[in-house]
């Protein structure tokens, strides 16, 4: 069995999970992932879509060409690969969508976001795939801001209602041109998938705390170039709408009756953190400009000391 720490949880997996942070084996891991026979369907379904169904207790996911995954209690994952499927495709699925559902089953909030630490506090970047969350997080990490998480942010609330994101420290997944532009060649690992242009990249710097308080969320928006004015403030209603839209797998959140939970969580996040819109621009060459805008923003908001 392979041992990892993922989204703040100890995980024991029967197959290797490339990119995940390796950890010492835990005597009683939070999550166990095993190869097993997985049924084609569940009885007494409470919600479903073509790719998944749930009976309220268990969650069955079907990934065509990859396999089937059965999730129970946010703790046990059984998976059965399709004949001829690449086991590394199962691994990618386990680290992504499957883990998002596990977090739901554990009553946590999962956002589609990357996060870095600024002055010991968490700054999140949300947005649709392809807008540059990971590249921006990688660029900031290169600049000295420890990486907290990439792609999925597990959020839990402490006794006082403050949102905290778990440090995940999984490897980044970056395109070759981003790796070159950021000077991350020596951190470059294997290809994520055969034939895809993304590679695993070891983060130069990882946050060492188990979790950090969320103080700012930037929602990335499409735009050719960064706005000179920098990040834009959002109204309270818009902040909630943006946060909810950036839940991990919002369709699943909606169809499994989790909207009230996510609404409350979004309100709690918006109460304790600031939510902004940010246009990072398409061009890798504009990244330093975006970073400068962010650092100015952080200085103005007291997150950075002026000596940095």
């Amino acid at each position, binding site marked *: 069995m392979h041992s990892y720490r993922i989204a703040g949880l100890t995980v024991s997996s029967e197959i290797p999970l490339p990119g995940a942070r390796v950890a010492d084996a835990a005597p009683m891991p939070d999550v166990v992932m095993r190869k097993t026979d997985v049924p084609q369907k569940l009885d007494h379904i409470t919600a479903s879509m073509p790719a998944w169904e749930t009976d309220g207790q268990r969650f069955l996911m079907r990934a065509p060409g990859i396999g089937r995954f059965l999730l129970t209690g946010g703790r046990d994952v059984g998976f059965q690969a399709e004949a001829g499927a690449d086991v590394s495709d199962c691994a990618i699925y386990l680290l992504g969508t499957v883990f998002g559902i596990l977090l739901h089953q554990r009553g946590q909030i999962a956002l589609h976001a990357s996060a870095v630490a600024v002055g010991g506090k968490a700054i999140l970047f949300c947005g649709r795939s392809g807008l540059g969350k990971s590249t921006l997080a990688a660029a900031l990490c290169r600049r000295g801001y420890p990486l907290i998480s990439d792609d999925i942010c597990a959020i839990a609330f402490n006794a006082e209602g403050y949102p905290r994101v778990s440090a995940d420290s999984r490897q980044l997944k970056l395109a070759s041109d981003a790796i070159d532009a950021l000077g991350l060649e020596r951190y470059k690992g294997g290809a994520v998938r055969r034939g895809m242009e993304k590679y695993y990249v070891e983060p130069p710097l990882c946050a060492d705390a188990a979790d950090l308080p969320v103080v700012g969320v930037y929602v990335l928006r499409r735009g050719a170039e960064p706005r000179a004015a920098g990040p834009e403030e959002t109204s309270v*209603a818009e902040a909630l709408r943006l946060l909810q839209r950036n839940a991990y797998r919002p369709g699943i959140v909606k169809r499994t009756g989790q*909207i009230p939970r996510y609404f*409350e969580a979004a309100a709690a996040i918006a109460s304790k953190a600031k939510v902004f819109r940010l246009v990072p621009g398409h061009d890798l060459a504009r990244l330093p400009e975006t970073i400068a805008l962010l650092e100015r923003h952080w200085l103005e908001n007291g997150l950075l000391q002026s000596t940095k």
Partner: protein
Amino acid sequence: MDPTVQRKGDWLSAMVGDELVMMSAESGNYVTVSRVGSRIWELIERPKTLDELCGQLVREFDVTPEACRADVQRFLDEMTTNGAVALSQAAGD
């Protein structure tokens, strides 16, 4: 005529700072409501007549009955437009 004011539709609500944010479970629309508005929303968790509502608010907030009624009417108009509130005439007044 003293209409009855009651909530309508399926709304989630939560405080963010001083404001109450509401989201319609049906339409996904958001409405932001001020402190007074959020107290009105709270009070109409069980239907109340307009007189009862204004009477309560005048006791809680430092405002004349006339100003209160005008504010409440304005709030109710907006909430009716958003589909969050329904006003009905009590039968056999």
